[in-house]
């Protein structure tokens, strides 16, 4: 396209954005809302993934020792388990240490322990697993092997938590596309309607442009560009809203309870996700415009022929 035609297209876009300012704003807000919901799911998914990974990195198997074992037997057992290929290290927790840890965990409520004997909690071995062996089946297999050792009374690891969170993550991933998809469809038609309104407002201009020999591309280009601008503006607005939400949640983290504490700090969307939202906004705007343009011009040209 010639430079002079580009100038013509940009002038028409500028005029349209000015004359139908609020209509374009409303459409951009609709795009922003759809992308905000989608972005919120991406945000949740990203942080849950981090949580799951954090748990995976720190996954430990707690094996509770029989009270009748003497120190030499425990040391022998530790050496044997440390020799397993998937084991990173083995940490021994005495009954006294277990008592102190429990007391610390209870904090202000530690008075509940008053009157209980200090050896009420069993001594245990905390078995850490090497990176690369933290997959569910490997952990499960190791736990089974430990259970077979007669020195242990019980073997425990947070399998249900990990699996449960994995399912939540899967659900969030699906919900992102299902909710997002429905909202994208709605937004697609709303963008299309705005473009149609813009075309109706300028149908005299379109007719005259056709009559004086403007190409179809030149007639359509401004509307397509308007749709893209709406989409990208909506995506930027959604990112701003997500950032505000992120800042709010980060401030509220301490009051959200211990469940989220392993997250340490919430993280905002990475560059790839930000890029995805911008591209989705752009695509929504462009696709809604093209769809509406084609339909409008087809029916309009047909009606001009019949006139």
């Amino acid at each position, binding site marked *: 396209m*010639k430079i*002079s*035609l580009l*100038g*013509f297209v940009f*002038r028409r876009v500028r005029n349209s954005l000015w004359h139908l300012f609020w209509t374009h704003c409303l459409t951009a807000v609709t795009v922003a809302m759809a992308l905000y919901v989608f972005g919120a799911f991406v945000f949740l998914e990203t942080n849950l993934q981090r949580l799951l990974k954090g748990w995976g990195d720190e996954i430990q198997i707690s094996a509770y020792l029989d009270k009748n074992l003497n120190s030499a037997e425990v040391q022998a057992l530790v050496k044997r388990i440390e020799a397993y290929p998937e084991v990173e290290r083995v940490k021994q927790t005495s009954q006294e240490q277990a008592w102190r840890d429990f007391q610390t965990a209870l904090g202000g409520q530690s008075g509940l322990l008053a009157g209980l004997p200090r050896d009420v909690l069993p001594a245990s071995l905390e078995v850490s697993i090497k990176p690369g062996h933290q997959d569910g089946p490997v952990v499960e297999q190791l736990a089974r092997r430990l259970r077979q050792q007669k020195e242990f009374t019980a073997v425990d690891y947070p399998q249900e938590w990990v699996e449960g969170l994995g399912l939540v993550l899967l659900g969030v991933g699906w919900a992102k596309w299902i909710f997002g998809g429905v909202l994208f469809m709605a937004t697609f038609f709303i963008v299309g309607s705005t473009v149609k309104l813009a075309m109706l407002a300028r149908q*005299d*201009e379109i*007719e*005259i*442009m*056709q*009559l*004086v*020999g*403007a*190409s*179809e591309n*030149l007639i359509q280009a401004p509307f397509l560009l308007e749709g893209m601008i709406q989409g990208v503006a909506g995506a930027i607005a959604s990112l701003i809203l997500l950032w505000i939400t992120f800042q709010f949640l980060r401030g509220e983290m301490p009051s959200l309870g211990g469940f989220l504490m392993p997250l340490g700090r919430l993280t905002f969307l990475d560059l790839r996700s930000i890029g995805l939202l911008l591209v989705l906004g752009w695509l929504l705007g462009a696709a809604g415009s093209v769809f509406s343009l084609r339909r409008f011009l087809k029916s309009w040209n047909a009606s*001009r*022929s*019949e006139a």
Partner: protein
Amino acid sequence: MIQLFHVSKTYPPNYQALTDINFEVKKGEFVFLAGPSGAGKSTLLKLLFRQEEPTEGQILIDGQNITRLASRGVAGLRRRIGLVFQEFKLLTHLTALENVALAAEVIGMSKNASRTRAYQLLRDLGLKERYDSKPLGLSAGEQQRVAIARALINDPMLILADEPTGNLDADVAEETMRLFFKIRDRGTTIVVATHDLQAIHRAGTRIVFLQRGVLSNEVRLSPALERRK
């Protein structure tokens, strides 16, 4: 310049607007398409600038068969044709100058060049003082001159005018016809569809009559207006 061979046009479901039209317009010729309302004059013009496709027959303009053109071809054809309508078809939010310049801008002329050219045309057509007025601030005759300037801005080989004097009083209509003759004298072929018999009588020249979609007669009147111009 224009050749029609057995051209017919039927609108669905079964309205025969034109039937087996054959005629030719030579380069630089001025032709009136005359006939009552509903005779098919506007339909014939629409076929010539390809707002419509004929149901049957072939149309050649400047040697090019325009019967089946893709949209790009239609745009290309219209760049070589100037169109003038009874209702002027001016954009009310643009000034006279902008209305004229628009036709050049959409085919790639720069903003400055198109405005300079539009100003020259408006000046030549006696609208030097009104170039900055919007259409609603202009008289009917002035609006039609703006429309003619727009039709001329891309130096068309052919001008098609559909009832160009329909909204003008007699004096302004005569002045407008005189303008068309001046344009014809520069070598531009002109076809004017009208049912205004007074305008035809004053103007003279070749007249093609249409009656219910059929070419009924063809005459040449004494070109009284031509002599007076």
